[in-house]
């Protein structure tokens, strides 16, 4: 779709990412910042936080699959368990975007995720 896009949008249609006044607004509040809700943290929504036991985790990917907030991160990080099992990926919690729903812990087939109270 690059046809005719060479000119780009006029600057004034785009606005500023964090507008302060009307003059900074993109036209019709059209948002040209894809994926920008990542700037929002939802950690305050939690009363419990999921904690993944890397040793128990069997890397089935289900927690990553079932997270409505994309808050389970799949990272290319090697891990060797205490019993000597080697994994190429690890699952980590993105605590900025986790809302603490607990689906991951509920669905984990080996109970490797524990929901820990945020405040004692």
């Amino acid at each position: 779709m690059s046809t005719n896009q060479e000119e780009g949008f006029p600057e004034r249609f785009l606005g500023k990412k964090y507008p302060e006044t009307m003059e900074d607004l993109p036209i019709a509040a059209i948002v040209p910042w894809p994926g920008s809700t990542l700037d929002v943290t939802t950690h305050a929504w939690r009363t419990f936080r999921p904690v993944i036991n890397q040793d128990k985790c069997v890397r089935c990917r289900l927690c990553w699959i079932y997270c409505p907030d994309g808050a389970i991160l799949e990272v290319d990080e090697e891990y060797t368990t205490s019993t000597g099992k080697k994994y190429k990926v690890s699952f980590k919690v993105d605590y900025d975007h986790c809302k603490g729903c607990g689906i991951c812990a509920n669905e984990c087939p080996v109970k490797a995720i524990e929901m820990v109270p945020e405040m004692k």
Partner: protein
Amino acid sequence: MALTKPIKSLWEIPREERFVGGHAACQGCGAALVLRHLTKVVGKDAIIVNATGCMEVISTLFPRTAWRNPWLHLAFENAGAAASGVEAALKALQRKGVLDKNRYIKVVAIAGDGGTFDIGLQSLSGMLERGHDVMYVVYDNEAYMNTGIQRSGATPYGAWTTTTPVGKKFRGEWRPKKDIVGIAYAHRIPYIATANPAYPIDMINKFVKAYNTRGPSLVHVLTPCTPGWRIPESKTIEVAKLAVQTGMWVLLEIENGKPKVTVKVRKRKPVREYLKMQGRFRHLTEEDIKKIQEMVDKYVEEINRWVGEEAIGPVEE
């Protein structure tokens, strides 16, 4: 890159997120989860048209957006018409040489049950009947959840909602759920499916088939709503799975008019297990539950007859 081939393993689901976190969906939202996977399937070259509803509201509070795709929202009842407009524009601009003819851009419409079964039905019918190349995904949380759990045409028999309350005279919804798949089927469109996020491979493969369809397709996805169904936030997948295991929700696919059950259930669980998990059904008496069991038995019988095999088995306690 769109996922154009069916997957066999969960590991084939692309890692890249196109519907990102930080959105304002409730904890444990089934619909937000479905959108994550839908956008992974359709990839970058897809234009999303979203009806007004939960998913529109939670993802686009100015000045931010959870979407990495071009995305358009006009109103509640017109996702079908708006998607038709986008598709027609792409066609015209490609034919006239403004856009690259060889680059396939998919148009994906997303609407809730209210925006599809009720207020948007006419617009959807027009889109299906005219044969637009649009993939329409309806996320069905079985009530108007965005406005506070009011009854829709998709609300199942017996369910409490704020407009089908439980009182002395009436006890929840007293009419059965509208058959949206039957309505789509009557339009003779090339691809129709039902899906469920607790069966991710099945769901993703249905998105893939809808993506690969040239012409209108409809995927009807059950999306548990934790506040609306009155279930704990962590039980979204568990309850969705029970919907299939009890035969309340049959995973179907109708390809060029040929129906098929994609996830067979040899032994059904009693509907009680599904109903008892949810606060919206807590008022049901044993008699009510028996009636719902009979309704499901009849539905399963119809499905089995339709697909020509015993795809869904009998109830075993």
